[in-house]
Each structure stands twice: as structure tokens, then as C-alpha cells.
């Protein structure tokens, strides 16, 4: 009888062994430290990959264009594995996409981080300008009709609940002052003119050869056939007014920026390992 138990144990153990091997294959453990840090080939490859995939938003020097300055991430205490997961999983609620396998391999991500590390800078030492509490009032007076933070605000412009995680301070300032040429997808300004000359202004949510889908300035979402319109015109000026210094003082802008950069989302930071 004893051999039956022995056989059973052997079977259970080998099944467990197979399962464990399978787990090990499909969920490899992530190193806490970048295995390619300082590797010259990896840095070169990482530079190319960074320029193709990241520089559009974060800038060729990684000091931020639309998206945040990422030269100071280590100085601010982020670890290699946390940064790895940010690239792999993206930042929910922002334009930062997930770079999924197999299109982006683990090695690809480590190479990008190896390159970024060569650009790493110390944390800024200057005093932060502006008062966020005052800035919230500036926001309520000037911005909330079109922009939402949390539960409150309009929907014609982008939701700003996580804008502090998504945008560099300077990028937000440029946007407010009206010095930005391009538009975020889904917010391109458009004017439709009906056959009787009535104008419908709004932002473009979608379009094809035959139709255009918009949110108009009254926040009505609606699709229109091009053949029903006299003209459909893509505007050059943003639907958002420019807030020049005569409309918003430098001090008010500093307060507003202090408030907006404090908007980092519910948990402040991207939940590591989020997603599937």
C-alpha cells in the first residue's frame, strides 16, 4: 500500500513543479535595479528608442514639453522598477500610454531607462512660486466653466484632475497664456456653417469623409453630415481663450500653476503594477 502514497506524493510534487515552472516562465520577477545601467550599447539603443517614442511629449532633453520633466525622477525618489512599471503600464487618466509586450520588450524599457539615467539631474532647489489655495479660487473664477477637476466643472475642455502628473508646469503656463499651436485630440476647434448661415462652434470628437462629431460650446454632443453643412472649418485658434497678462496677472498665474501642478490624481502617484 505504501507505494501508492509514495507515487501520490511524487505525482503531486511533479505537478507542483510543473506549475511552478510555468509560473516562473510567465511571470518573471522584475529586478529592482536596472540591469543595463551604464551599458554603452544599451544607452545608445535607449537614446534612439527614447527619441522615437518619448521625445515628442517629454522633449529631446527629457526636460518636458507637454509632459513632465523626467530628468529629476530619481532625485525625487522614484526607483528603477517603479519607473519600469510606469513605462510598461502607462499613467491612467493621462496621455502617457502603456508600452505593452511583446512590441516593447523588457530590454527595450531598461535601455530607455539606461539612457534617461545619463540625463538625470538633481531636484530643483528654488522655492516653489505661488499659493495653491489662492490658485483654486483663480481656477473657480476663470477655468471651471470648461474644465473639470474631480466632481466639478465643465466638459468642453480636457479634465484637469491629474494635470499635475500629465503636464510640465511650463507647458501649462504656455497653454494658459495662449502660446500653443497644436491641439489635443478630441479638442480641435471646429466651426460648422449651416445652409442658412448659422454657425455652430465646438470641439471635434471624431470625423470621417462624410461626417463630423462635435461637442458644441453649449456642451451638446452631436454628429453632423458634411453634406448638410455649407462649410466645415478647422479653426486655427484654440477654443480656449488666451489669458494674457492684462487678463491674468503673473501673480495669479503663479497661484493657478501652484494649484494645477498639485493635481496629481487620487493617489498622487501611478499605482505600480496597475492594469492587467
Amino acid at each position, binding site marked *: 500500500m505504501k507505494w501508492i502514497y509514495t507515487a501520490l506524493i511524487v505525482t503531486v510534487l511533479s505537478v507542483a513543479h510543473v506549475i511552478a515552472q510555468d509560473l516562473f516562465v510567465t511571470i518573471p520577477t522584475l529586478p529592482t535595479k536596472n540591469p543595463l545601467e551604464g551599458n554603452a*550599447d544599451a544607452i545608445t*539603443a535607449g537614446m*534612439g528608442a527614447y527619441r522615437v517614442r518619448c521625445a515628442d511629449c517629454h522633449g529631446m532633453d527629457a526636460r518636458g514639453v507637454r509632459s513632465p520633466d523626467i530628468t529629476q525622477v530619481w532625485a525625487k525618489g522614484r526607483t528603477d522598477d517603479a519607473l519600469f512599471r510606469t513605462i510598461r503600464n502607462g499613467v491612467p487618466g493621462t496621455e502617457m500610454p502603456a508600452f505593452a509586450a511583446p512590441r516593447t520588450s523588457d*530590454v527595450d524599457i531598461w535601455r530607455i531607462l539606461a539612457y534617461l539615467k545619463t540625463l538625470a539631474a538633481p531636484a530643483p532647489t528654488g522655492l516653489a512660486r505661488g499659493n495653491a489655495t489662492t490658485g483654486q479660487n483663480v481656477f473657480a473664477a476663470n477655468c471651471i466653466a470648461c474644465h473639470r477637476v474631480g466632481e466639478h466643472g465643465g466638459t468642453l475642455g480636457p479634465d484637469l484632475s491629474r494635470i499635475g502628473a500629465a503636464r510640465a508646469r511650463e507647458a501649462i503656463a504656455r497653454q494658459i497664456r495662449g502660446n500653443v499651436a497644436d491641439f489635443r485630440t478630441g479638442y480641435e476647434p471646429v466651426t460648422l456653417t449651416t445652409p442658412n448661415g448659422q454657425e455652430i462652434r465646438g470641439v471635434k470628437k471624431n470625423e*470621417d*469623409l462624410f461626417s463630423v462629431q462635435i461637442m458644441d460650446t453649449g456642451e451638446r454632443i452631436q454628429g453632423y453630415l458634411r453634406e448638410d453643412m455649407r462649410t466645415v472649418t478647422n479653426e486655427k485658434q484654440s477654443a480656449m481663450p488666451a489669458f494674457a497678462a492684462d487678463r491674468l496677472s503673473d501673480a495669479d498665474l503663479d497661484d493657478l500653476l501652484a494649484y494645477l501642478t498639485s493635481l496629481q490624481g487620487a493617489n498622487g502617484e501611478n499605482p505600480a503594477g496597475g492594469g492587467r
Partner: protein
Amino acid sequence: MYRLVVRLMLVGLGPAILAASLLAQGAPPPLVTPQELLDGLKPDGAHWLVFGGGYENHRHSPLTQITPENVGRLVPQWVFQTDTPARFETTPLLRDNVLYVTGPLNLAWAIDARTGREIWRYRRELPPTGSLTACCGLVNKGFGVLGDRLFMTTLDAHLLALDMKTGAVAWDVTLEDYRKGYASTIAPLVVKDKVIVGVAGGEYGIRGFIDAYDAKTGKQAWRFYTIPGPGEPGNDTWAGDSWQRGGAGVWVTGAYDPALNLLYYGIGNPGPDYHSESRKGDNLYSDSIVALDADTGKLRWHYQFTPHDLHDWDATEVPVLADLTIAGQPRKVVMFANRNGFYYTLDRTDGKLIVAKPFVITTWAKEVGPDGRPVLLPGHVPDEKGALTCPDVTGATNFWPPSYDPAQRLFFVNAREVCATYYAWRQEYVPGERFTGGAAQRARGADMRAYGALRAIDPTTGERRWEFEYISPSTSGLLSTASGLIFSGDAEGNFLAIDARSGKFLWRFQMGSALHGTSAITYMLDGRQHVLVPTGTTLTSWALSDVPREKPFTN
């Protein structure tokens, strides 16, 4: 005497009665013959048995029931759903009122063309997630057929023969080890008794090839390596040992000329894709068209569109054959709209260049010289800093099939006007890993409009006859008909009918997903012309609302 008459009548009528009763019971149709494949698309519209309609890849149907005047009366007959997350890039086949369709993720179906109901379904188990290397989607481009068998390539680089009646596997051969970066998505071309296939993997350091297998047994008949080995002519066009991992995949179905007994296949990009120093030389036969003897696989001639390509411009577009009169001379030609921005007409008997003309904005070459080589312009070698070049990496066109109208002598192609910044750097080769030595990024900005257009090209001159513009680049293949229609699609999901004589818009339907990488097909069924459209995860069958169906049985 009377008895004799009765007996004679019985002898004469017997077989006829027997035949009639067998037909009523649904006797199996005769096996698919090589002659049927040679016939291509016939005026009765009863079948579609070859990837491009016929071996010449015209995708031009002789059917005329649907016209520019009545196309607005097309109504859907049924919709078939794959219930998978991945999309169709397949060309369905039709025979005896049954559709044979390959799908993504190694799936395949036989579908009742009358109702869209599944008859059988085949699924090959995929290797573990992450181990497949098909660079650009877990797709498949369609079946080949002969006898009572269908032939299908797989993502793990096998070739299968399936029983047409059941979907059961008749034989299964390994093309190459998928763990080394090989995959296969190509629709097999059946020529005489052989099944012709190729492998993908140009981004994974493979050594590409075209294979022929015996249709009955699956035994390999020949192999043509798209990169010559040591001692073979052309091996010296690869510096050092770079030929060993030079890519040059074959993932788009070629053409066949039965009179010359030649196969024509476009060959993929050299690897690593972007880094010049890693593979000095012309890198034959990457980015070339090759003409192979269909019986032996021996190379008859080649023409390289893009010597030493640095922009991932695979010549994996569909070659189209026609007989034209050029400068007063009858010419047997192969037409080729290339990813590199040029449209080519070549003599298909010897590969000599007849016409080469850009069909989109092309900045890397001034022209193609009389010797057949592009005259390069400076500043288009990618490096770490990046170089701006038109067209972009997806190219002026790509694997989505063009069509050719022999009556108008016009070549139709969905073209892209997009530029890109190309980067390159040295990369170590690791078996089974992506091996591109760089990357490319689509150029954006106010002065960098990216759009697409359906263009009609005169193959005797390369001149554009007309165009139909899309708001963004389309990746749809084309189907044209003798009644003067072109069926196309745009990136926004519209299925479109365009006037083949003028390029004017005629009709549209929003399918909810783009027609991508393949085209509609058309055929006759119960007296009505049907158009079958693979978009996203659906097949949709269309016919005219006001044409009554002819019942297959009479009282």
C-alpha cells in the same frame, strides 16, 4: 420489339435518372482542378479560388450586375462574426456556394455563402503567449485550394492541409522553428501540383525563403533562399556574415505566368532594418521581385527596387501581370507599386525596367536611372540624430492588394502621403528577439499633412489618371469590376464604391471597422451578384435589394 424499346429506354434513361437523383441529394462537386485555378475569375462568377482572383492578381471581376448606377441599392444579406479580438486580413475563397475563410489567431471556417452560417470551424492551438514573433498582428491572409484540400500557413510557421468538407488536418509540415523568429501569414499559391508559401520575420534576423510542397503529400519540392548562401551569386552583396540574419521575408502572395512557367514574388526588407553599417552592400534579394521557375524554384531573374534599403521598405506588395502595348510593342509586364514611393512596370520575361515613376512624394531618390538603380539624394541615411524622409516606414503603399482593369488599362492603388524621421543605431543580434537597429517616427506638424488617396495609374507611363482623396491614409485593398466600379475602404471604417472611370465617390457604408490589408471579393449566388467584405472581426455579404433571388430548385 416493344420489350427492346423499353430496355433501350431504360439503358438510356437510367444514368440520367441516377445523375438527377444524385444531384438532388447533393453529390459532391468535382475536385478543384489545376485548370479551374488557371481559369481565374470567369463570367459566370461561380467561384473565387486564387488569392488575387486569378494568377495575374487583377482582383478585377467580369461581373456587371452591380453598376455605378445601382450600387446605392446594395443591402446587407448577413453578417458573420469571428468572436475574436483580432481582425481579418484575409481573402476568402468561394466554391460551390461555400466560403472558405482564414482568420486571426490560426482560426479558419467554412461558411454557407447563402446564410453566413458556419459549417465547420478549425482552430490550431497557439504556442504560449509571448513566444510568437509575427511582428505586426496575429493575422492570416487566406487559403489556397486544390483537389479536396485547403492550404493554410500558421503563426508558428507551419503549413497545413485541411479537408474542405470537415476542416480536419490532412497533413502538417514545419516550415521553420518559430522560436527563431519565423512566422507565416501568407496565403498559399497553388500552382499545378505544388503549394507555394513563404515566411515572415524580417524584424527578427531570419533568413527568408520561398518553399514549394507537394499538395498531396506535403513533401517539400524545393526551397529558394531569398538571401544567397556562401558561394552563390549575390552572397557578396552582404558584408561579412550579415547574410545569415538578413531577414528578407516573404509574406505577400505572388503571381504566376503559366506560359512562361514563372512565379513572381516580392521580397521583404533586409535586417537590421535601419542600420547601414551592419550590412554593407546591396543586400540581395531583399526589396526585390524574383522570377522563379515554378517546377524547380530556380531563379530566372531578379530586380531590386531598393538596393541597401535603410527604411524598412519591403517589396511585399502584390505583383500584377498584364500584356500591354508600350511604344507600339506588345509587352508582357509585371506591374508593381512599391513601398519606396515608385510605381514600376517591368518586362516579366527578363526583369528589364520599362517604367519607374513616383506615385507619392518621394524625397530619397531623384529618379530611377536607365540602369534600373535609384539615383540617391543626400541626407537619407538614418543615424542616431534622425533623418527625415518621405515616404514613411509603412510606405507609399504596402501589402494591401491593388487592382487592375484590363479594359481601361488602369492600375488602381491605395497610396499614402506620409513622411517619417528615421533613426538608426548598432544592435546586437539575439535569436528570436526584434532586430531592427533603429526606429522610425511619423513626421507631424502643420506642414506635414498625412493623408491617403486612391490613385489610378497608367502602367505604360506611370502617369496618374485620377485620384480620390481620403482624410487619412487608407490600408484597404481594392476590388474592381467590369461594370466600372472600385470597392475600397477608408481608415475611418467606411466601405466605399468609387467610379473606376472618374474616381468619383458613388456609395458608402460605415462598417464600424476599417477594411485593412485585404479587399472585398465578388461572386454570383442564386442569380444575384454578391460582394463580400472582411472588416474588423466581421464578414458582411451584400447584394442588390431589387434583384430577385433565383431558387436553386424548381417544382
